């Protein structure tokens, strides 16, 4: 008996409505009707807005949606007063706004030019902005009133607004990767990965019925990007060898002794070096390749090849030239991460080492440098990804690299290949076109692997060198 009573009382406490009037299922549904309707229109208009920015043929949608939002928000305004006894003027403002947007949209010509610029864009761009501007607040309000306008509902109703940019970014990213993967995996011929590209005309001996030999020319074609893959690897190795000692050294110097005017100047210069346009580095590379023309050092900076009886010079540059200029791009990155790593060392550790009668140099070697190691390695891997992906630096000196890969050979890389397929020679373009997505996919895999390695090694090295 007693147990039943307690059970009843708890049941009552839980189901008791807040304002005394018991709400049946039907009534609750009726109350939710207008917020639900508003919510669906708002969501539709946001989706339409996101699609409309990419297409010009969505003209029919924005206007009726703006009308619907304008009207349904007025109804929601009245419904809120009926349910919660308060006037929510925000709803009226959004409603009025959508009416104004509607008028603007009708008044706009189909193509908009402005500020005496030649740029022309379609009015659907405006409709996207307008739909988002009214769709988002109406979605938030609709969700809020759908969830009975509690403080918790206020939080929940704002989640989608925070989520939308994230979803858009992830969606675009996945779209990009999906396109590359789906196109790249349409296997035309996997042997392109191990074959070099060449298209040369060679003389060939031939005989007619045991007669004297005669000569004819035969075109030999091989399609593949082995040299581009190996070239990317060689660029990464050479650039790392050149930039790591200098970058790490400069970073250590700046963190240890870089507080004076000289250090500050150096830091400023390194920061400005990071902001330099890559195309300017490309021009520098072109200059470097030309600087040794007609000197004994020409073979080092020009890509050369040996045809069997003479050494020819290419019109471009060598891997050495490319990696010298790429080092200019990488050294500031390495310097900065090294300095950050060293400066993140707790000062007590340095003091502790010095207080044991240990010299500054040994402290640098045994305490400071290991501490900065996770930063340095991570920075290095990201720098490698940068090297693998940079086209602008190589644009003026890279060629097709038909004649092999080596420090003094003609430079080429996977990233340059993709550029070359579009803007290169017609013949080359026709032969390589089917493989462009494979090359892109390969480059994506290389850079993403380097990025993932950077994240993983950072954690692992932090454990190893910082005991975390």
């Amino acid at each position, binding site marked *: 008996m007693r147990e039943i009573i307690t059970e009843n009382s708890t049941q009552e406490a839980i189901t008791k409505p807040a304002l005394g009037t018991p709400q049946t299922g039907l009534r609750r549904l009726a109350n939710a009707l207008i917020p639900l309707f508003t919510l669906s229109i708002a969501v539709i208009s946001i989706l339409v807005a996101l699609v409309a920015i990419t297409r010009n043929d969505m003209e029919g949608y924005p206007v009726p949606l703006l009308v619907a939002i304008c009207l349904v928000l007025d109804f929601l305004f009245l419904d809120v007063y009926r349910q919660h006894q308060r006037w929510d003027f925000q709803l009226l403002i959004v409603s009025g706004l959508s009416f104004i947007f509607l008028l603007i949209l009708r008044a706009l010509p189909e193509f908009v030019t402005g500020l005496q610029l030649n740029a022309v864009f379609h009015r659907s761009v405006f409709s996207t902005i307008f739909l988002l501007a009214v769709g988002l607040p109406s979605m938030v309000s609709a969700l809020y009133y759908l969830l009975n306008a509690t403080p918790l509902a206020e939080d929940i109703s704002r989640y989608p607004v925070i989520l939308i940019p994230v979803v858009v970014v992830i969606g675009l990213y996945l779209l990009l990767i999906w396109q590359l993967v789906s196109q790249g995996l349409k296997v035309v011929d996997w042997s392109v990965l191990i074959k070099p590209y060449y298209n040369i005309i060679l003389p060939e001996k031939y005989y007619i019925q045991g007669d004297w030999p005669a000569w004819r020319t035969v075109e030999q074609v091989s399609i593949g990007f082995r040299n581009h893959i190996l070239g990317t690897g060689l660029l990464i190795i050479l650039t790392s060898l050149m930039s790591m000692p200098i970058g790490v050294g400069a970073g250590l110097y700046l963190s240890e002794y870089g507080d004076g005017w000289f250090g500050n100047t150096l830091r400023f210069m390194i920061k400005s070096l990071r902001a330099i346009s890559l195309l300017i580095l490309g021009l520098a590379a072109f200059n470097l390749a030309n600087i040794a023309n007609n000197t004994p050092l020409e073979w080092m900076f020009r890509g050369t090849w040996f045809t069997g009886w003479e050494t020819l010079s290419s019109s471009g540059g060598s891997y050495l030239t490319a990696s010298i200029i790429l080092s200019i791009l990488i050294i500031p990155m390495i310097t900065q991460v090294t300095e950050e790593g060293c400066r993140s060392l707790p000062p*007590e550790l340095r003091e*502790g*080492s010095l207080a*044991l009668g240990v010299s500054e140099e040994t402290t640098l070697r045994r305490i400071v440098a290991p501490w900065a190691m996770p930063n340095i390695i991570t920075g290095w891997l990201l720098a490698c990804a940068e090297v693998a992906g940079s086209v602008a630096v190589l644009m003026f000196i890279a060629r097709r690299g038909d004649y092999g890969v080596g420090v003094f050979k003609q430079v080429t890389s996977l990233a340059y290949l993709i550029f070359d397929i579009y803007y290169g020679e017609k013949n080359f373009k026709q032969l390589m076109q089917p493989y462009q997505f494979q090359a892109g996919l390969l480059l994506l895999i290389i850079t993403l692997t380097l990025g993932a390695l950077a994240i993983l090694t950072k954690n692992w090295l932090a454990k190893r060198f910082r005991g975390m």
Partner: protein
Amino acid sequence: MSNSNGRNVNHSEPKKAPRGVEIRGLKVSYGANLVLKGIDLSIQPGKVTALIGPSGCGKTTLLRCINRMNELVRGCTISGEVLLDGKNVFQMDPMVLRRKVGMVFQKPNPFPMSIRDNILYGIEAGKIKVNKDEVIRNSLQKAAIWDEIQNRLGDNAFRLSIGQQQRICLARCLAISPEVVLMDEPAASLDPTSAAKVEESILGMKGDYTSIIVTHNMQQARRVSDYTVFIFLGEVVEYGETERLFADPQRTETKEYIAGRFG
């Protein structure tokens, strides 16, 4: 070599006798801010001396002058003399000096390496030839932590508790067999049990080392020290045997500080 401190030598091991520290007219300023206004002190060899005083009175600055760690602070100017074994420390090689004058900091600062490497760090860097296992064992025993960690010397010292870390730091300092040990509030950030163990090892160091300890804890100063210096506003107000100073302070400032009226 044998100026007035021939006692307390442990003849079982070839150990150097502890040295006294003589401070004469020491003035230290950071920029325009004069922190120590002429300190004259004679620290007794082989004893524990406590430096007490309110925050910002210059205790730590005084301590860090003895092994010249203050020179690493920017804008710090020092005048006066600190004599260790009759030699002015400001004319010595700081690295040689710091091997003779060890230091334990307020915040435990073990290096991110194994416990073993932590203890051997100073020895290896100074290229001192010793029996390494014996040094590890002795110094960890002196720091009252050997029993807890003798089976996991390969563990990273960063993953020990704060109290254990501080005792590792003490052991690391003792491993290079200094003559003077400076301690800057060694037990301030520790739990009571660890603090008690640190105090225990300070008491165990008496006779072998000249210890100088900065502390805010009156009870601790009373428990561990033989002599106490009360510093106020950069000047030595009172210096004497701990028992006498706490039982019968001569100056009013000392009396009030010990009673907890200020600081």
